[in-house]
């Protein structure tokens, strides 16, 4: 009746989409405003850090630098003074690295085994143990600061007495590593436990029939399957420990201050002229590590977070 090649009348095919619909305007408008809100301070910081002091004194905060100089960056890294030390942020950077690496490795190693044991090797009271551990995440840090000072001091003196050395935990990098490991435990254990719970139980049973033990199953079956959750844990710990200020200022000494504490001391120093360009450069330098981490691992992070979503 109708020719197969006849042209259609009325609606046919995909529904046309309007580019400038009210929904799209609202959506992209909001996204733009939010993006500007977050990017503007960063812009001001970068621009200011590239200006010389005379240019800053002109007061045009948003103006791009007329004369680009990297002097403030060099000064922030290698020359800025905190107290008696005048070797810039570099000292704090290396301190932070020395705190960060063992803290991240230690906390993730312990928490992943914790989570694995709690998920797959349930023992009498394991649920109670887990509840107590999670409860630890809700206790305010302030309550625990002083007891930990005493614990670290006594433990350090105990070790010194036993080994006959002058070992100190309080005020040393190792003390801070222990503190970070302990405080990372609740949230990391929760993360790993939930991830390992989502691994099919039959896989675990099959491995037991195949003769693998606690560590065999952990290293040969579970670990290779849980890269996403390890990435999440690493990101959480690296950014958390790098950005930490409170524990750093309490449990270390000026020689071993992490980068954040040193940054504060540079920016908040009351003597002399306020060098805004140096302060901005120092702040950017300190923030660089978490920034790089986020940029590199964005996709993996989202995937891992979804995989370890809080459930049961």
């Amino acid at each position: 009746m109708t020719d197969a090649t006849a042209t259609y009348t009325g609606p046919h095919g995909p529904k046309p989409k309007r580019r400038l619909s009210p929904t799209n305007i609202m959506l992209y408008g909001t996204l733009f405003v939010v993006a500007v809100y977050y990017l503007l301070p960063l812009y001001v910081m970068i621009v200011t850090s590239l200006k010389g002091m005379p240019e800053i004194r002109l007061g045009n905060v948003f103006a791009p630098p007329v004369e680009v100089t990297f002097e403030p960056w060099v000064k922030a890294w290698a020359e800025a003074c905190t107290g008696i030390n005048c070797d810039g942020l570099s000292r704090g950077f290396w301190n932070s690295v020395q705190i960060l690496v063992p803290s991240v490795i230690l906390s993730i190693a312990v928490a992943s085994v914790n989570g694995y044991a709690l998920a797959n090797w349930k023992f009498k009271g394991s649920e109670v143990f887990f509840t107590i551990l999670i409860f630890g995440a809700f206790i305010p840090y302030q309550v625990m600061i002083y007891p930990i000072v005493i614990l670290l001091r006594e433990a350090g003196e105990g070790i010194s007495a036993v080994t006959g050395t002058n070992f100190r935990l309080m005020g040393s990098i190792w003390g801070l590593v222990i503190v970070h490991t302990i405080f990372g435990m609740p949230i990391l254990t929760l993360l790993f436990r939930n991830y390992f719970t989502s691994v099919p139980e039959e896989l675990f049973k099959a491995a037991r029939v195949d003769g693998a033990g606690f560590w065999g199953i952990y290293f040969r079956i579970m670990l290779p399957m849980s890269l996403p959750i390890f990435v999440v844990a690493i990101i959480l710990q690296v950014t958390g420990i790098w950005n930490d200020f409170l524990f750093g200022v309490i449990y270390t000494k000026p020689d071993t201050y992490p980068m954040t504490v040193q940054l504060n001391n540079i920016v908040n120093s009351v003597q002399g002229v306020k060098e805004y360009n140096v302060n901005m450069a120092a702040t950017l330098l300190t923030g660089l590590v978490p920034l790089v981490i986020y940029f590199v691992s964005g996709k993996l992070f989202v995937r891992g977070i979804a995989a370890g979503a809080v459930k049961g």
Partner: protein
Amino acid sequence: MALTSEKLAEPVAAPALAEDTPSVAIRNLDLAFGSVKVLQNLNLDIRQGEFLVLLGSSGCGKSTLLNCIAGLLDVTGGQIFINERNVTWAEPSERGIGMVFQSYALYPQMSVRGNLSFGLKNQRLPKAEIEERVNRAAGILQIENLLDRKPAALSGGQRQRVAIGRALVRDVDVFLFDEPLSNLDAKLRSELRVEIKRLHQKLSNTMVYVTHDQIEALTLADRIAIMRGGVIQQLDAPQTIYNKPANLYVAGFIGSPSMSFLDAETVESGGTTALQVGARTVPLDGYEGEGPLAPGRKVVFGVRPEHIVVTDAADPAAHVTATVDLDEPMGSDSLLWLDMDGHKLSVRIASDANYAPGSTVGLSFDLSKSSIFDTQSELRL
């Protein structure tokens, strides 16, 4: 002591002890999760080379029992023997069992070869022997060309074959299957079912197979153990279970479409006992009961759809008359639903037979294949 409690625990009959040594022997097994008792005083002997199917609806304890045999669950009481060795406290890997799971449970990051050899590496066997065993298992299951693939690159049927292979390489006496075909589609399921049966014929290992699918149970099993509420209701050859179900539950569970049940009474008729069904008396000629039937008992008369013959309503040979409700054509044959004094009855008829709804037909029962159950105890009489 064991003997008396055995009698108490089994409502039907204590499992007969095998003449030769049982491959798997379960003695007075108890298992409880907290206060929930899943298995209570369970006794079971599995013969050498036997294919035993544990059948039951979900929650009946069949998988729990299998996990106990495997050693994946700690028992609350009792003992488990495998080839006369008490393995009650042994690790799963030390029990001489291989297990196949419903979800395949293949290690996702290992190749098929890695999956097959994982257990052997844990036993620290020499490389050459691992290689040889893996190749032999792969040959039997025809998965040689898949050895270097990851499980993610396999189809469901291939995955399950690898999972069976993982049990095969262990060179064990007892295979445990936990609903291995439930995740597959209907066609693959029937294919793999045949393969498992062939595998059993070839290897003649003892196999314990958990399923809720009665077709799988009937086709595969040497003996079926039907479980309900953690208790074995009947342990017998498939044909015996089908023709002489030990109680009402087994009778209703096995067979699809299921057995029709009619309330009846035993009566005295011409010197022998007959069955009073509705207004008609059915002589018990040819009934193979467990013992003599006394008149005056309230009973349930059970008959399968294929053991009823539809005749003319006026046929003097007909036992009862019934009204046609509806006709369900099933291809090879048809299922005729009938109404008899408010009782629903189904009859298997030839697919070309035609009965108008509402018409009255006569029925005669094949009593040699029917069952009569006591109303109170629900046991077969």
